[in-house]
């Protein structure tokens, strides 16, 4: 299988999507600027300004126009450059994209894909957040956050084929990550989690970039004879806990790793579901690894203490194992 970066896999997925003439992309700096993270580089030249729509810096408008166009038979891709900017479009996402199907009695739907990115690199408080749990909280949305190039491409295809609004969460620190990508047409369904690594001592439940850090932690611990099983959720809504619960019933211990704040974050939902459905198998309290709960500082030494690191994941796993 060819090895591609996340960026290249997404580019292939977007080119595939553009084969449908109903599809257009609307977002900031996707065309003339050449794309902030390079994903749509060259698209304007190939598809023209009618279908690669450089939008004003007006996030509500980007989402609003995409929602309307989707209702009227188009298959738009709305790009929100950074998830931090999506706050300006939350009315469109939550009150409109997510509600229109049920609020109007199922008479029409919103086949929209919103691409956006989490991420941080000394960008300070307003440019370093994750709102995964805020999207995943909303009935009517489907929310995906793949980790590998293969899943990026396969899940993007699933998202484009879906008649409901899909929030497609990427990560600025993942575009260069490489992995094998199957050739030809394939779909990775929304709502199905998967094992990223097998092991028998402890289960790590995670998604997106944290899968890669968890894999690094597992490599470190393997040298100490600790076998870590890693579950990649891939989709946050609907949340498929079947693989995680099966693993948990085998290992009886779990760490949940998510790159957002702990209180009311995605890890709270994941851990709760483990407790609710796996209580009888529990040998130790579940440990969570997340952002420290502060607005992200600019200073590098402080930022490093806020974000999730491999070392923190290793420490959490050891803590759970030592308690049982």
């Amino acid at each position, binding site marked *: 299988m060819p090895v591609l970066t996340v960026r290249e896999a997404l580019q292939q997925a977007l080119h595939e999507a553009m084969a449908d003439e109903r599809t257009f992309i609307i977002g900031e700096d996707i065309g003339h600027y050449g794309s902030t993270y390079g994903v749509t580089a060259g698209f304007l030249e190939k598809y023209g300004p009618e279908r690669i729509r450089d939008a004003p810096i*007006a996030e509500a*408008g980007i989402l609003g126009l995409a929602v*309307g*166009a989707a209702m009227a038979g188009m298959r738009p891709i709305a790009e929100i450059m950074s998830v931090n900017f999506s706050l300006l479009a939350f*009315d469109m996402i939550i*009150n*409109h994209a997510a509600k229109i199907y049920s609020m109007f*009695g199922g008479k029409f739907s919103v086949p929209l894909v919103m691409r956006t990115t989490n991420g941080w690199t000394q960008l300070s408080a307003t440019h370093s957040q994750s709102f995964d749990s805020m999207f995943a909280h909303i009935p*009517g949305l489907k929310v995906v956050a793949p980790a590998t190039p293969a899943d990026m491409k396969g899940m993007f295809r699933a998202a484009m084929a879906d008649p409901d609004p899909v929030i497609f969460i990427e990560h600025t620190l993942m575009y260069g990550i490489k992995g094998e990508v199957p050739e030809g047409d394939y779909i990775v369904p929304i709502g199905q989690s998967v094992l990223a690594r097998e092991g028998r001592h402890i289960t790590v439940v995670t998604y997106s970039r944290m899968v890669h850090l968890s894999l690094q932690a597992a490599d470190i611990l393997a040298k100490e004879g600790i076998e870590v099983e890693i579950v990649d959720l891939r989709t946050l809504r609907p949340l498929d806990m079947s693989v995680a619960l099966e693993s948990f019933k085998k290992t009886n211990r779990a760490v949940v790793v998510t790159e957002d704040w702990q209180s009311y974050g995605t890890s709270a939902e994941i851990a709760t579901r483990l407790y609710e459905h796996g209580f009888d198998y529990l040998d130790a309290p579940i440990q969570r690894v997340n952002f420290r709960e502060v607005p992200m500082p600019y200073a590098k030494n402080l930022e490093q203490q806020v974000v999730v690191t491999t070392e923190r994941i290793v420490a959490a796993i050891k803590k759970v194992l030592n308690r049982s």
Partner: protein
Amino acid sequence: MQKRRGATQAEASAASSLRSTMTSTPFSRARDHLGDAQLVELYRQMMLIRRFEEKCQEMYTRAKIGGFLHLYVGEEATGVGAISNLQPQDHIFTHYRDHGHAIARGLNIDELMAELFGKDTGTSHGMGGSMHFADVTKNFWGGYAIVGSHLLLADGVALACKMQKTNGVVMVFFGDGATNGGEFYESLNFAQLWKLPVVFVCENNLYAMGTPIEVHSSVKEIYRKASAFDMKAMRIDGNDVLTVREQVAEAVEYARSGQGPVLVEAMTYRFRGHSAQDTQKYRSKEDVEQHRSNDPVLIFRKELIEAGVSSVADIDALDAVIDEQVEASVRFADESPVPGNEWLTDSGIYAAPLATATVDPDLV
């Protein structure tokens, strides 16, 4: 009509025909152009809206209708006149005060009343209520309850019309209170920037809910806000159905011709409170009474009779038919079944529910 830089050919010809008919009125021109039957049809729509909503108020006090009930009473001429210019391939978006626009677009009043009663036979299966009437078969995309938000959706449908080359126009209704928020400005900018076929119809009823326009808007003439975007705009008498029809026709043709959007400010007045619970402390009874003496429905009725378009007997008979239709809608709504619990599962929330349920089946 606001002054514009350079008239198009169509505008010049309209102006010339206006000069040649200096003595004519919107009424006489419409009668010549439309014929008597169409004038009576406009009246029928206005009176149907009026009677339907009076019945809504009654059903609300009898607790057959719940939630919020925002009545359009007093503003009928704007919706009916504007929508009468639309073709089947055209689209409508509106706000939460949406009964009038839905009826003017020809939505079935049985289904509308059923929606208000929260019944399965409602336009939205009882999922939306008063603020969310819709009928996709008529390109009536719904009433929206977040002020100003739907202007952007209207732009989106207009973009689809343009990309699909349907020749369709999108008409979007909103109030004066919607013109201060960011979504209004974003929608005007996008529409003008991309020359989208949108007719923005601001129903200026002088109040943003209960806040007078002098208190809520730095610019009192809403149409002037379009000048920031070099957008064509006009301010019209929204209480005269034929004036509305005539002026908005020009806006619709302008948008359809690909020249871009138009902002229409229709001056009107809401006779009832913002919603059924409104005690109207923000305006005097005298003000309301004065506006009520210029009731657009009754004035048009009188005009039709005085011009000999319709006899008193005929128009009384038409009113009686309307009353019976409204009564029938109540019977239909009353006798209809309530929506099933499937609306509380993924199949009610998603067009394509997935194998993994988002709604916890074990929920106690």
